[in-house]
């Protein structure tokens, strides 16, 4: 479904991605794990069109999308749920969700999807008229994911959805990721919480300073000694 080949992305003169090659197949959960500055978020931002790559290709459903501006990538239903939630603080929860469906015109289907995501996150239903900025961090993360789902994504890319959240909420978020995947959404998940991410993922890539250091199935990586030492905190 998604084929990223030898991607190089720069911030000014600093080379953040030094030839990333990853692949996501339809129906999978694929995770990118790694330390701060390894290039996880940069990879997602390059795919979603927020940053243009210097060289390399990004093929989605057979089409080149590398270097496309963000709104055109979104039109391909490659949807990024950005790091730090980034919900619209002055808009109500409902308006935020409607923004997720900005490019869609099918009113009835949008209403049905709104109902679906509120079903998925009952906490959001209670706060549907509240301004986004008044929600707690966990609720904002739920809103950000729900907003992403409102676009009916072909590929949903989640950037650090567990960041800064209480363990109970992290469980809820990961349960939701599994649920969404079971219902047919392909997911590319960037996480610092490697243990959680590898447990839900079909496959994973370990990024180190801008390149892929290791790859394998979630189970393989969980069992890998280097991964256990560096990312799972075992001694």
């Amino acid at each position, binding site marked *: 479904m998604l084929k990223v080949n030898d991607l190089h992305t720069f911030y000014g003169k600093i080379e953040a991605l030094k030839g990333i090659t990853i692949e996501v197949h339809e129906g999978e959960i694929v995770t990118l794990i790694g330390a701060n500055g390894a290039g996880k978020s940069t990879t997602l931002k390059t795919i979603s069109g927020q940053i243009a790559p210097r060289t390399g290709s990004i093929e989605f459903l057979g089409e080149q999308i590398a270097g496309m501006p963000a709104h055109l990538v979104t039109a391909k239903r490659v949807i990024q749920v950005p790091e730090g939630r*980034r919900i619209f603080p*002055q808009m109500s929860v409902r308006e935020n969700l409607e*923004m997720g469906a900005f490019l869609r015109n099918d009113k009835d289907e949008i209403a049905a999807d709104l109902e679906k995501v509120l079903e998925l996150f009952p906490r959001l239903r209670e706060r549907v008229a509240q*301004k986004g900025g008044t929600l707690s961090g966990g609720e904002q993360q739920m809103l950000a994911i729900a907003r992403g789902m409102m676009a009916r994504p072909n590929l949903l890319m989640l950037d650090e959805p567990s960041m800064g959240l209480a363990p109970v909420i992290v469980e809820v978020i990961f349960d939701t990721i599994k649920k969404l995947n079971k219902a047919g959404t392909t997911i590319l998940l960037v996480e610092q919480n490697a243990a959680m991410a590898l447990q839900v993922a079909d496959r994973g890539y370990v990024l180190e300073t801008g390149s892929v250091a290791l790859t394998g199935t979630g189970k393989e990586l969980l069992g890998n000694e280097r991964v256990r030492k560096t990312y799972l905190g075992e001694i």
Partner: protein
Amino acid sequence: MSAELGIIAQQFVNGITLGGMYALLALGYTLVYGILLMINFAHAEMFMFGAYVGLFTLQGLSRIAFFTSSGPALLLLYVLTFLIAMIATGILGVVIERFAYRPLRHAPRLAPLISAIGVSLFLQNAALLWISSRSLPFPVLFEVRTFRIGGASISSMQILIIVTTIVLMLVLDSFVSRTRLGKSMRATSQDRDTAGLMGIDINRVIALTFFIGPALGAAAGIFSGMYYGNIKYNMGFIPGIKAFTAAVVGGIGNLRGAMLGGFLIGLLESLAAAYISTGYKDVIAFVVLIIVLIFKPGGLLGESVAEKV
């Protein structure tokens, strides 16, 4: 009604008229700031440019006998004048953004500011060179009647200005809160990158903003010409500064704040002219600004919802 109350009522009428012009102009500052976090110093020149286009359109069209033949035709003449001036000024705004600001979008924040000052000087001097260094009379083609309400008098000109201003504001307000394009503007002003992820074409939204703001500024410029009877190449400077102050007083980035700030400054200025001294009326806007910022640094209707990180 006592004479004292009559004066207050009269200054109220004058203040609302003046405030309407400030508010229209202030909307342009606040719209651009809301989206780009940039102060468009060239905005005052949209006021001037709009007034000139309005004047020339009015002069040109009034040569056609039809337009002065009857009341409704005259109304049509004015509607056309406003439309043409607003559209032309809107296009100028879009062109300025495209060539003077967009190339600097990722530059340090001071760069587009300086670029804006450059555009402002360029436009003022262009008008000075190509049109006139003196003020040009702005004709009024309809009979201005004066009505007395209580102790105050209000002219048909003032009614026209106040009503049109309020209509334009209501249109803008419902455009921003109801329509799809309006929503994309709000989303972009709250979080530009994320708006892009929603599928919003950011460059289109920015261009739209640079159309609407100058178009409203042009309307204010024509009003100013009609109200004071003449226009000049540097006519934008003082109203521009006051409108910018109004935008800050109301809470920059907030549309309703700009409207409120505009009317507030217009009113206080009129009252100050009557009760303190006409010489001090220009100072009032800035005294208000300072007082408001001491107590409410974000402006009267500034952001109240804290963003969580």
